[in-house]
């Protein structure tokens, strides 16, 4: 069972590696940012798998922090995009 969980976490890690291509290529800032956001979701899943595999409940707290705060960076990103559009339209 534990082997299955660690293998699953490894697969998730591999998807992060594959996703790096999208962060690197873009083409828009939103592509890069959304990709980094999806890494966060992947990381939460990997942490939960590791918490089960090694029976370490504190790892669920780490996953919960990532889950709760995922929206913060994205909100700041949207704020900048909104201000940018506003100033461009106003000019």
């Amino acid at each position, binding site marked *: 069972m534990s082997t299955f969980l660690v293998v699953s976490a490894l697969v998730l890690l591999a998807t992060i590696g594959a996703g*790096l291509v999208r962060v690197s290529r873009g083409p828009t800032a939103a592509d890069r940012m959304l990709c980094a956001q999806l890494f966060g979701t992947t*990381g939460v899943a990997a942490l939960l798998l590791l918490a089960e595999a090694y029976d*370490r409940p504190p790892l669920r707290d780490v996953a919960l*922090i990532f889950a709760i705060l995922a929206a913060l960076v994205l909100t*700041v990103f949207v704020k900048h995009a909104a201000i940018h559009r506003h100033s461009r339209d106003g000019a």
Partner: protein
Amino acid sequence: MIGLEVVFDVSVAVLLVVLALESLYTPNLFTSIAFFIAFGLVMALAWVRLQAPDLALAEAAVGAGLTGVLLLDAAREIAAVRGVERTPRSMVRLTSLLVAAGVGVALVAALLEVPPRAAGLAEAVREALPLTAVEHGVTSVLLDFRALDTFFETAVLLLAVITVLVLQAHQHVRIIPWELSASPVLSGLVGLLAPVVLVFSGYLLWAGTHAPGGAFQAGVLLGAGGILLELAGVHTVSRLPRRALRWLLSLGVAGFALLSGTLLLAGRGLLELPGAGARTIVIALEIAIAVSVALTVVSLVVGSNLRLEPPEQEP
């Protein structure tokens, strides 16, 4: 099974190096930041594999709650003033190169001093744990065995936030309005998240006495919640009277100073906690540190919106 763990650890290590190189050498600042956010995430996984859940918690809170936001803001400001700024002189570059190289050499020398496969002090802490007021090794080191280090760490944080606030008050570096126009999506999201953040940071603070967690992680998480509120236009920290803000920012340092002063007057050693009541003292200190850290985090991000020098009080 062991082979599988080695594969996982090597993958994490390789991914970390790739992410670090990408975020350093990508010409586009924004792409660098996206890579750096991913770096923080993988770093948290690395701390987990190194059996350091306390560090993983701190990495998660600081990485997801603070550095990403600060870097995005900084990149936007750099883009806004580009063309105005000057490239550093070659003397400055040379000096920073020399300083960095010196620190690097010192670190490598220190690393070579450490015996390979040293057991560290974990066993000693575990044996002495019954003597302390808490049941978690890391917290006992931070607030009991090495409380003096934590005292100075809170002082360093205070110094950092004072520096940032002074610079922002006098140079007007921030040009971006820090607030979004009212949006039902944002206020709905913040309405859902803010209570969760509050409860969870309280839980982390409480957990620190017997499990991974503690004042710094709880404080950063609470601060990130404060940033979310400010973004949604709910002004909690930025509308605090400046005197109250100053006191709350220094609450952690003040708590330590008060405690050590009282203990010295009572004829004990500096920060030598009394047996009875030590648990209450440790928890009170943790709360004070968490509050200071949270306000520091919000102040670093929302800086100049904190009206430190209100015009009506200036002559």
